[in-house]
């Protein structure tokens, strides 16, 4: 988190803003993308949400008061954008525009391939299967449990999750308890 603090508003004072922004992306993009991917189950939407989250953060960095960590702040933006995505999906469905032809339901194989070329085919197949199982287990959770589980998986504490999602800490704890139980049952063979 020390590095993250360097990219906060106070860290920008003596730094070239573009370099600071690039550093922020470097440090946090995996986290933001993971949250967006697990909450939408759609790679194209996850890329869009990740991009929009960073652009929004950059646009409003002056409004960041430092009451929460930069990581929690980014998570809150990402969670809100994901909720907008689902509202948009529901609206499309309501007016009869289905998304059957929409791309992004699965990750491109080359993105799942390990960087080490050795043993690629087997590893790629295993990675793809694991990805499918994990996403399927998350999709089976009710929306609030899914949000809590996904943020918990990114290392956020219960209080931070509460701040990001606008929930009481006790509610977060209850959701995490239920989600953990269900995920444990679905993914037991990998644990």
């Amino acid at each position, binding site marked *: 988190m020390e590095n993250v603090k360097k990219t906060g508003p106070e860290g920008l004072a003596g730094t070239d803003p*573009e370099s600071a*922004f*690039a550093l922020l*992306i*470097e440090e946090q*993009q*995996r986290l933001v*993308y*993971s949250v967006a*991917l*697990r909450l939408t189950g759609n790679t194209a939407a*996850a*890329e*869009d949400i*990740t*991009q*929009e989250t*960073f*652009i929004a953060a*950059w*646009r409003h960095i002056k409004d960041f008061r430092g009451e929460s960590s930069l990581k929690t702040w980014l998570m809150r933006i990402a969670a809100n*954008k994901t909720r*907008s*995505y689902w*509202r*948009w*999906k529901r*609206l499309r469905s*309501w*007016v009869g525009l289905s998304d059957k032809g929409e791309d992004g339901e699965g*990750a491109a194989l*080359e*993105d*799942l*391939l*390990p*960087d080490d070329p050795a043993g690629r085919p087997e590893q790629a197949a295993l*990675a793809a299967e*694991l*990805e499918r199982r*994990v996403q399927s287990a*998350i999709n089976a959770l009710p929306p609030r449990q899914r949000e809590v*589980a*996904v943020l*918990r*998986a*990114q*290392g956020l504490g219960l209080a931070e999750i509460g701040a990001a999602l606008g929930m009481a800490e006790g509610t977060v704890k209850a959701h995490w308890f239920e989600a*953990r*139980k269900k*995920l*444990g049952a679905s*993914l037991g063979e*990998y*644990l």
Partner: protein
Amino acid sequence: MNEEKESKLVSLLAARRSEAFWRRQKAGILRAAVEERGPRRAWLLAPAAALAALLVLVLVRNPSQPVLDEPQAVSAAFIEHLDLLDDMDVLEAVPEEEL
């Protein structure tokens, strides 16, 4: 669930992508930041679209009744009464003084 299992579960939920993917994504975000003034993603306009859809729904369900001019209503009633005149038996049964 013990702590070891919980930490395994947490690591399972992370998205695994190649370094090339992360580099490509970072470049995309930086490029988008430069082009920020461009059009936004359509789904970010969802709240406005939802309001518009609601408005359409309300208008469809409660269409404003066409206001009929008073003379038209009178004319319609008058024509209906004229239709009664077709029944000449009625007319013939009415005493002449009452006509």
